[in-house]
């Protein structure tokens, strides 16, 4: 789970969940506290979906824009 997606891809991280900032891969300080917790929950849910999905190369599991919170 990281904001530096291209680096994660280059070093071969198999499952990548993009975050919104280098300093806060699992958060978003621009959101209200409840909305940020909801965003973080979506990120962890995507991570859980990622680890249950077979991959054969670096694969991005983004939180979809329409399900994004405060995007």
């Amino acid at each position, binding site marked *: *789970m*990281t*904001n*530096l997606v291209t680096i*994660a891809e*280059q*070093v*071969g*991280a*198999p*499952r990548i969940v993009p*975050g919104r*900032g*280098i*300093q*806060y*891969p*699992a*958060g*978003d*300080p621009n959101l209200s506290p409840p909305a*940020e*917790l909801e965003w*973080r*929950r979506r*990120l*962890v*849910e995507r*991570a*859980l*979906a990622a*680890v*249950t*999905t*077979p*991959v*054969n*190369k670096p694969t991005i599991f983004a939180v979809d824009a329409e399900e994004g919170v405060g995007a």
Partner: protein
Amino acid sequence: MRLVHYVNQFYAGLGGEDAAGLGPQVLDGTAGPGRLLQQLLGEDHQIVATIVCGDNYAASDPAVSAELLEMARTADAELLIAGPAFGSGRYGLVCARLVAAAQAADLPAVASMHPDNPGIGEAGAAPVVAAGAVARQMRPTLERLAAAVAKLATGAPLTAEDGRVGGNARIGRLVEDRAARRAVELVLARLAGDRERTEVPVGGFDVVVPAAPVDKADAAAVALVTEGAVVPFGNPDRLESARATRWLRYPIEGVDTLVSGTWESVAGGFATTLANADPNRLLPLDAARELERDGAIGHLHGEFFSTVGNGTSVATAKRFGVEWAAELRKAGVQAAILTAT
């Protein structure tokens, strides 16, 4: 032999970031690390001049290396030395470009930098010998560099045994044995347990084979791990803020959220204000606990692992990864979420 030494503004004693814009200049004799290097080289070789340039000036334009090379020529260099740059990116980049330009102009040259220095690729086929990651390792680094210079001065090529790192020199030369015999010898060496010997070193990141997926997250033990340097407030175990040499583990059994002022990040590579206002932004414990309570995660592992990625070498990071995977596997964990800054 007449040697010319390249160092940046900092090692020449001309200033730090404030002097990084300085243009190139030539000093007589040695400067900075050149003094110890000269002692180690003895009387057979003389550093006759030191070329200095500010890192920002030198790294911002590849054409500067031609200018620096010309200055070395003017000083009648018979061999050019650049660095040691340790892990410094701009300095390493300039050293690498300079030795590449020198080699292309048939001036023997060698640079010294850490194998993970981001500039190392620019050296091309010109020789680079390994330096430590930080300037604290100056003496052993200069001892290796001095030995490499002495060997290079005899006309012999530098090899891995001299501490050579980086790209491969593809130089045509005659060898005693034909390829078939050498190949069989390499196979026999491999069978005898030698995993390193090769005629063609392969650089770059190795291939990561993705792990097979877990069947169901709601039945799995899941761990949280991070390279964001999350530690208890006050950093009681003194995790480094850069260039980690170790990692730490902290219990989170019964902990529902990482409270600001109880936990913090000591990472040195980015501003931690936002992370320290809510450390869950680095290690998503509050959300993972909710998902555990809701049954989406079978069980959240009772401790998290933490280290700092800032400036940490690839080799060290790889070792941490292997150790983390082994620890988690032993503890019965099936999946891990790694947050990276």
